């Protein structure tokens, strides 16, 4: 008994020491407001932190803590600081990057946000943070029949996980509809319509955690592109050709049992509510020669609408996608070169194109972008606003001799927020454009010359 008490005491002491060491940076969160949006299959969390420095040493960075399970599903962390007063309020983006901490309890992972200017003692600042989680909604039941709605679990903590002391905090969870099966009660917590409100909670120490589960209906199409390969081929003859290969999956609750076409067709609202049958791809304006096919031929169910701002391609896979079903397809199109290729210096050019997946509201597990530079281009370099895996390849296309340089960019876990421009710089001598026409011309010339020669050569030994 005494031993048990003693060990508990030791444990508490250790905990105290641990927490004090973690919060040794001396920052304190005065107010934390969190809004968790669960309306689609992408979880967006908006976090507003009002931070005060309580120590003498000025603070240059703020740590954001994530439980390890969440960290793996983290697609994007964005931070901004509010500048100016009420009227002229604006946001200045801050850099957020993952960091390691030596004594992180229970494998907690961190992002560190660098402040614009160091925070002196007693000063406060307000950070606006957005982070996006993918594949964090677990369908339960795991398998549903055609007429069932799709219910999912969302797991998180009622209290914001943080290495700092939080004075006041509140969390709002937004669900897509009023159908919430259950949610963990952490007083005070209440539900009104499609909103769950946790808090306000006062004075929680560092690394406080209070697990919650929200079980609710979410019939949003869980469209996940498991693999997307975009090949952007630059031709200096006036066109950029883009080919996108998709491996699409519905990652929601698995479809169970029969699929009845008659039910699906006769009751569009009541049957297969979590399935989806079309997707919208937003393509650049002035797009031409669009095609949509898969490995067994053209798919005839697509519609293209173009205007001066953008082109919208509405595509329907061959069959509606229910939970667990998959489909593969390919979209290709050409866009005018002058919209995307610019000359930065004499002989040097750069391509300015959009990163990410053109299909709206999807998650891409693995995105590979291949930029095929024209034959004979040199010194490729890439500018992307976030970290990607880069490598170079060679590709031989129509009548190539030395091959084209291919810049390969790879990124996992891509969400629509990654839809930002990136640049590929390279050097190119326009004379190379003439290589292939000249080659063809000379081939034909040789052919004709050979046939002329053949007609004039007499190889017979004896003259007739």
């Amino acid at each position, binding site marked *: 008994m005494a031993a048990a008490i003693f060990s508990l005491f030791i444990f508490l002491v250790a905990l105290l020491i641990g927490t004090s060491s973690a919060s040794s940076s001396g920052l304190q969160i005065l107010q934390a407001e969190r809004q968790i949006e669960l309306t689609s299959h992408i979880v967006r969390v908006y976090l507003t932190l009002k931070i005060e420095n309580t120590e003498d040493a000025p603070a240059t960075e703020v740590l954001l803590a994530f439980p390890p399970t969440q960290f793996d599903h983290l697609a994007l962390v964005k931070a901004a600081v509010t500048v100016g007063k009420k009227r002229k309020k604006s946001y200045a983006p801050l850099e957020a990057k993952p960091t390691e901490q030596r004594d992180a309890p229970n494998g907690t992972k961190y992002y560190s946000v660098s402040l614009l200017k160091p925070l002196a003692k007693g000063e406060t600042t307000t950070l606006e943070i957005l982070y996006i989680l993918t594949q964090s909604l677990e369908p339960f039941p795991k398998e549903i029949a055609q007429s069932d709605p799709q219910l999912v679990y969302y797991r998180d903590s009622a209290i914001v996980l943080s290495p700092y002391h939080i004075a006041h905090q509140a969390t709002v969870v937004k669900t897509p509809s009023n159908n919430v099966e259950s949610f963990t009660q952490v007083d005070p917590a209440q539900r009104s319509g499609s909103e769950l409100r946790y808090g306000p909670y006062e004075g929680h120490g560092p690394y406080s955690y209070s697990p919650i589960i929200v079980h609710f209906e979410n019939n949003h199409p869980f469209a996940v592109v498991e693999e997307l390969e975009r090949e952007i081929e630059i031709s200096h003859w006036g066109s950029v050709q883009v080919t996108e290969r998709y491996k699409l999956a519905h990652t929601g609750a698995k479809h169970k*049992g*029969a*699929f*009845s*076409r*008659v039910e699906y*067709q*006769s009751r569009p609202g009541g049957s297969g509510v979590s399935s989806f049958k079309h997707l919208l791809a937003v393509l650049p304006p002035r797009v031409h020669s669009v095609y949509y096919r*898969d490995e*067994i*031929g*053209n*798919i*005839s*169910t697509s519609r293209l609408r173009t205007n001066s701002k953008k082109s919208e391609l509405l595509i329907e896979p*061959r*069959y509606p996608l229910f939970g*667990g*079903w*998959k*489909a*593969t397809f390919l979209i290709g199109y050409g866009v005018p070169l002058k919209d995307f290729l610019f000359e930065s210096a004499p002989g040097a050019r750069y391509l300015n194109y959009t990163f990410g997946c053109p299909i709206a509201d999807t998650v891409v597990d693995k995105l590979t972008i291949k930029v095929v530079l024209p034959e004979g281009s040199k010194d490729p370099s890439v500018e992307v606003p976030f970290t990607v895996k880069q490598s170079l390849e060679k590709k*031989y*296309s*129509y*009548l*190539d*001799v030395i091959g084209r340089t291919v810049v390969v960019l790879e990124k996992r876990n891509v969400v629509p927020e990654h839809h930002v421009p990136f640049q590929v710089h390279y050097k190119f001598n326009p004379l190379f454009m003439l290589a292939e026409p000249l080659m063809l011309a000379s081939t034909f010339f040789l052919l004709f010359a050979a046939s002329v020669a053949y007609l004039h050569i007499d190889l*017979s030994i004896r003259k007739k």
Partner: protein
Amino acid sequence: MAAQETSQSAIFRHAFGNVLSFTVLLLIGVMAFSIRLFSVIKYESVIHEFDPYFNYRVTQFLTKSGVYDFWNWFDDRTWYPLGRVIGGTVYPGLTLTAGTLWRILNSINIPLSVETVCVFTAPVFSAFASWATYLLTKEIKGAGAGLTAAALLAMVPSYISRSVAGSYDNEAVAIFALIFTFYLYIKTLNTGSLFYATLNAIAYFYMVCSWGGYTFIINLIPMHVLLCIVTGRYSPRLYIAYAPLVVLGTLLAALVPVVGFNAVMTSEHFASFLVFIIIHVVALVYYIKGILTPQMFKVAVTLVVSVGMVLCFAVLAVLIALVASSPTKGWSGRSLSLLDPTYASKYIPIIASVSEHQPPTWPSYFMDINVLAFLVPAGIIACFLPLSDASSFAVLYIVTSVYFSGVMVRLMLVLAPAACIMSGIALSEAFDVFTRSIKFHLVGTTQNPQENAGDATKVTQNDVKSEKSEDTVKERSSRKSKKKDKENIEKPSLVSRVEKRLLVLPLETSVMAVFLVVLLGAFYVVHCVWAAAEAYSAPSIVLTSRSHDGLHVFDDFREAYAWLSHNTEVDDKVASWWDYGYQTTAMANRTVIVDNNTWNNTHIATVGTALSSPEKAAWDIFNSLDVKYVLVVFGGLVGYPSDDINKFLWMVRIGGGVFPHIKEPDYLRDGQYRIDSQATPTMLNCLMYKLSYYRFVETDGRGYDKVRNTEIGKKHFKLNHFEEVFTTHHWMVRIYKLKSPRNRIRGKTKRSKSQKSGTSKRSTRKKNPWQ
């Protein structure tokens, strides 16, 4: 001076003629290629129909794994659980051709996909085929006829039907190989060159590689040789044309795995060996005749004939014994149905069930060869003026192919080149006569008759000369026998002189006739373009219909195949009627039980039996075959007529042919096939009916079948052993999954076991012939 001028103008004419015919040939090639692109333009660049999908799949394997793996390829994706040795059972010509083409293109960095190469193989080879037709007809009746025949062949609907872009089938390259083999045979016959004889054997080898129809060659050429011998046209050239072909050709043919020893063991090839013996005897006789005096020769003949008769009988007896010892008398079923058109429908329902094995109707002749049907007789007559070795071959070719096309609609394809050659000859001769008459009259008005007569002769002489010199230019390397040269000069000039005197028609008549012939040609062209665009370009995996609100696309087949390929396990077995086997393996990449290569009748009969059995019995059969999904094609919702219900009687027949408990009369009410309320209970309870019409009544409330134009007989029913897992948008393909057997409650089974253990066993055996 004048002579020099004429010779110069002759050279000029000759050069101009060469360039002109080269250009015309090039344009014919372009036309042959482009007329076949309607399918790509109207639909898409996709492989068509059923067999091409198999060829495409084989080509994919070939390009991926290389040629050695291809020879050893054992395909476990089809004919489950038997599998199929693909390398040893396909004619590899087409796939090797396309595979080589693809490899060459990729090696010079033209990265076309295998599919693209496959789609465009047929149009490319039809251009080759029209050029080969030019060569063949030129050997028979000169360059004019050659060009006309090539142009006709480039757009003959019968050939288009098998060689539109995407129709990636054996016939696409085989017709080229067929014509080219014939060309080389005639070329050898005309020149007596061993070089061409060797090429001929190689061309024959290519034909053997490409198509089972090679037996047509190996029977037609011996027939022609025999004809030549019988009509006293034996010459050393004939010997050179024939003997190397048989020896080399047979050896080469035996190299093709699918033919192998069949090249010497089946009856289809025996005619060639018989003629081979005969030609040697004849050659020997001619040789002996050359060395002996006439008296001695007579003595020798009587001696040899008596001995020879004995020997011949002996050989014949051996042959007959050999043939009689094999069960089908050494003939394959398809060949037998060629000789006896009623054979298939009597004995082999599986051959009879294929629509392309039916005899054609008269309209299909008009559809497929159009005006050529009327021009052919004229061409045959032209071939007899004068009859040469080559033209007698052409006559023989047309006569035999007309017979074969009358037996099987598929062989219309063999008739088409013959018809084109004959019509080419006819048209060219007709133009020759008419234009000469016109020229005669036009020249006659300006000059006095005597001079123009001389002029006309000169012109014809010139023509002959230019033709001849053209020949010599083309065949510089080959040594022509002097005799042949002489013939060439003498015969045509004599003929032309005779013709000139006989065939000068009045000017008005000639002009009218030319006009009419051009009109005929124009009609042919219009028909061909229409046939290419409307009749033969549909890929049959995607259907379209035009209604008042625009074009409607039915892409259900690919919808179903794509669903299968993405949403079922890789090893799942899919059962369907054999028509869809090739497509399922190629597009869905799933194992099938039977496919379009109908090599195992019992296996197909098993599937037929399952589909015509009641649900439980069918479930047992399918389960014993490890089947997970059953696919049926149903056209009743949108009115697609070639669905499984319409094919169902064949399933019953083929199934009943092996498993006698399936009886066709059980499915017919008073000899009529119907699915409405008058249908027999066996019909309304069979699996095919149930899978096709499951919950169909819920679409319109009364279950009206648009194909059969009737309300279905049994509307509301449940499936106990099958579960609908996918139905395409227009209900054209329905996929069902076999329900896993229900867990047995222990007490229940025990009781039922004790009650009727003996009877249940027997009854299952009766129901399920597979166990």
